[in-house]
């Protein structure tokens, strides 16, 4: 019996993107259902009653939500290209960094953007980004030669951050401070499995200009 895979998402959401990248890596065919976030569908509320948020993956009628939970579920169910390392310790390390990105890095970056580049906020965001810069070591991706859970978790940093920086007119992820991360961003967005999920940059920048009151 063929798998029925649906993704409730919003084009332009970095969290939805995480899931799409994972689906692409595994070569899974799915139906994308665009949600109107100002008028959420009855289905979305039914399938994610706790948070009422996208993305929600429906697999053969069963809903899974929270983007990193979904990505791990995808890796668990579908073999093929691995998203998590197989070694238990390496797997734990990947989970640690994915969680760090969500718990520490992205919130600090949001704060720096929200403050429109206030010095202290930018310094704190850069402190967190430095950990990622160091973690890349000599590798193309956090996963080594190929992208893994950590790279997928950092999707926002690879593309959305640049769009927001341009819209506001500030720079948090600077090339001089973060040469490896800067290169990683370029490499990551050029992966075929990632490229197909991204909305055009002009649309992203326009969205952020409106969001940050710069339009």
């Amino acid at each position, binding site marked *: 019996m063929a798998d029925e895979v649906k993704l409730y998402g919003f084009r332009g959401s970095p969290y939805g993107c995480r899931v799409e990248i994972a689906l692409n890596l595994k070569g899974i065919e799915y139906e994308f259902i665009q949600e109107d976030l100002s008028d959420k569908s009855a289905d979305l509320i039914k399938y994610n009653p706790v948070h009422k948020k996208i993305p929600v993956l429906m697999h053969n009628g069963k809903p*899974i939500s*929270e983007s990193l939970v979904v990505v791990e579920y995808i890796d668990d169910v579908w073999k093929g290209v691995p998203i998590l390392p197989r070694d238990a310790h390496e*797997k*734990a390390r990947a989970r*640690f960094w994915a969680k760090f990105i969500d718990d520490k890095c992205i919130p600090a970056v949001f704060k720096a953007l929200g403050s429109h580049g206030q010095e202290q906020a930018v310094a704190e965001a850069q402190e967190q980004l430095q950990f990622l810069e160091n973690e890349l070591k000599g590798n193309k991706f956090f996963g080594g030669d190929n992208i893994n859970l950590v790279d997928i978790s950092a999707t926002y940093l690879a593309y959305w951050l640049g769009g927001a920086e341009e819209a506001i007119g500030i720079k948090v992820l600077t090339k001089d401070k973060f040469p490896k991360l800067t290169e990683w961003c370029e490499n990551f967005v050029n992966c075929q499995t990632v490229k197909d999920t991204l909305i055009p940059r002009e649309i992203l920048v326009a969205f952020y200009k409106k969001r940050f009151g710069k339009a």
Partner: protein
Amino acid sequence: MSSIEQSEVVVLGWWPSMFYARVRIALAEKGINYEYVEEDLPDNKSPLLLKHNPIYKKVPVLIHKGKSICESKIIIQYIDETWKEGYPLLPSDPYLKSQAAFWADYIDKHIYKGANMVVNSKGEEMQKGVEEFLGYLKVLERELGEKPYFNGESFGFVDMALICYYSSFVASEIIGNFSIEKHCPKLAVWATQCLKRESVSKALADPKKVYDLLIAYRKKTGLEE
């Protein structure tokens, strides 16, 4: 070589930490022997802790054959994947596993925040904190439903994730002057069931000691006379 360096499994913890309690429960369920290092927190972190958790500098840390694993939920998953025999900590079914991950995540995002809101405030702000905290607990009450455990018929990952907060809940109830049982009777029954497990009762910090610690903190920060 010190005994720490010789031990295959070492845990860095701190007695009132609910996250450390969580790891203790997991190791006990699997019957794993380990060397325990009590950290002198919050102000006197050991070189071992700083070496093995340089990013967060927090407990718990599991050191297995010299390699460190940090973050309690990640540690439990590691324990389950490494020591495959013994009690299963997570479901093997991918869907059930994803649901367990979802709820453990919910607990750490909302329950932790909710309990903190009660303990770190006073007066009207505390009342709001209590209401918000109970709101989050009611979501869990609904999720538990009529099941004996969040995991179903047997104790599992989500149960471990929540029961480790027990001692701090008891302390919060006294500080905030409210009753969890009154609003979430099923959770109260569930907690009693969990406490019957030796792995749980031995892992949890004495609620009275946790209460004393929290009161001392509240007095120090001017939240309590």
